């Protein structure tokens, strides 16, 4: 019986039979449909996904005319810390544009959080100005809301990670609500400084990493940014396939945020006024690539169908069907990209 090379979610290589791959595709689709309460992929789509996974060649690509644009999070840092090429960030923007063909990129600080950045924003704006002088592509500024940084001892707010295990629920919720106010203020401040420096947009990356309050902070900051700087683009990137309920009762526009899957996350993102939504589906390291990509595509397809703004799917280490490994393997990366674009109908990556 012939077998096909593929990988586990941790990147290790495995061989699977056609029947095993088809079975895992079906299981991945069913898992996403069950958790997200969304439709399955069609049989035709699952067959095509099988074709993509089993295509000969290490690298696969989308059909001509199906190309999509790319955005990135902290893109200008990655040549330095992934490739070990020491490079000033505005130069990395130029390399990304002129050598790698990036369609847009963001500049981010190594301390990738708005709270950390606000104190050094005077050092960040010249980098943005220089990049804007030289680049043709849109250059955004990116960071995370990172609500945890507002808790004691790093910040002014009580630490809900300590309060929750003590069953001090009300206190933990109040602390999160207070942290939202601080985070929104910092995000709007940095967005304003970057607007003045010529930024084309602001990337609120990994919203929800600290739970539903973190996601709410991203939404409220977007509202204020769009109100003050209507022509500054806003990208909201998610942190996972559902919003973790650290608070559990927070709402935005009458909708509870905790537990929302991508097809509902994107609707709140739209309401807040964002221009791009970065959908995230986490990779399960214990499952195969066929399982992970089938699950991811099912979530993404439902998200794109629901969306009225472009959806740029996160496809990096540990998300978007990509394996959780230091260097994501090119066979997995290109197959995930092709599947997300051609079946999931992603607007960008």
């Amino acid at each position, binding site marked *: 019986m012939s077998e096909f090379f593929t990988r586990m979610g941790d990147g290790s290589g495995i061989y699977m039979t056609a029947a095993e791959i088809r079975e895992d595709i079906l299981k991945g689709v069913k898992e996403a449909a069950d958790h997200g309460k969304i439709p399955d992929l069609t049989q035709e789509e699952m067959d095509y996904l099988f074709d993509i996974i089993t295509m000969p060649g290490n690298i696969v690509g989308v059909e001509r005319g199906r190309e999509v644009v790319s955005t990135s999070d902290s893109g200008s840092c990655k040549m330095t810390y992934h490739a070990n090429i020491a490079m000033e960030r505005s130069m990395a923007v130029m390399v990304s544009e002129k050598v790698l063909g990036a369609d847009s990129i963001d500049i981010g600080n190594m301390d990738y959080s708005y709270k950390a950045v606000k104190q050094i924003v005077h050092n960040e704006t010249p980098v943005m100005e220089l990049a804007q002088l030289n680049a043709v592509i849109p250059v955004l500024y990116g960071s995370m809301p990172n609500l945890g940084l507002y808790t004691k001892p790093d910040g002014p707010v009580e630490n809900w*990670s300590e309060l929750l295990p003590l069953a001090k629920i009300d206190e*933990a919720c109040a602390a999160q609500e207070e942290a939202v106010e601080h985070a929104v203020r910092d995000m709007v401040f940095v967005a304003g400084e970057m607007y003045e420096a010529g930024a084309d947009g602001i990337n609120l990356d990994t919203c929800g990493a600290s739970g539903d309050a973190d996601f709410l902070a991203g939404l409220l900051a977007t509202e204020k940014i769009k109100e003050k700087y209507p022509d500054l683009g806003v990208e909201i990137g998610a942190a996972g396939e559902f919003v973790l*309920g650290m608070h559990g009762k927070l709402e935005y526009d009458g909708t509870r945020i905790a*537990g929302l899957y991508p097809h509902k996350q994107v609707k709140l993102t739209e309401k807040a006024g964002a221009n791009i939504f970065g959908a995230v589906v986490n990779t399960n390291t*214990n499952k195969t690539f066929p399982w992970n990509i089938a699950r991811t595509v099912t979530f993404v397809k439902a998200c794109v169908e629901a969306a009225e703004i472009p959806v740029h799917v996160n496809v990096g280490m540990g998300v978007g069907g990509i394996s959780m490994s*230091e260097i994501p393997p090119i066979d997995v990366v290109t197959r995930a990209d092709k599947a997300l674009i051609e079946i999931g109908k992603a607007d960008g990556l």
Partner: protein
Amino acid sequence: MSLESILNDAKQAILDIDEDKAVEVARQAIAEGIDPVKVLADGFSVGIRTIGDLFSRGEIFMPELILSAQAMKAAVAVLDESLVGEAAEKIGKMIFATVEGDVHDIGKGIAIALIQTQGVEVIDLGRDVPVDKIIEEAETHGAKVIGTSALLTTTMPNQEKLEIELRKRGLREKYKTIIGGAPCTQRWADKIGADAYAEDAAEGVNKVLELMKH
């Protein structure tokens, strides 16, 4: 009341996050002479595992998870009173840490909250904990199990370092080790020689209880 009803009520009390009801069911089980271990394993634990599953699906949230764990803890305390000698042998101490270089501890916190409800005493060393400190604390507290969490591929090697250090110091057979965290897998556990791997908090509870038996 039948055994089936007691078990169902025990499960439901946890699902309803009703601490008073959980305590009442535990007392009733004892009054009716039902094996407390059975009530725990087939009643309350079924409830807490269901809660864990709902949490992992985004259908219930951290406050509910914590409160249901509290309800479970209260019920376990009642059942513990009726377990003499036998219970003391079943329950042991566990060291739990996020390995050095890694500051992620939300998942660890969830796992600890659930494991504690099963009567295991968990010593939480927090995050970014060096291997030396983990071993030192395990020795000090007389732990049976050492659990480590890593959320980064760059910090996973510290789980392997723990295994190596335990072997170097002739302590490997003294402890059972369990690992977890997003990038970890059963294959990683096998490769480094850990005794168990848990994919999530609910599985962690069962695995730790199993390790405690050895």
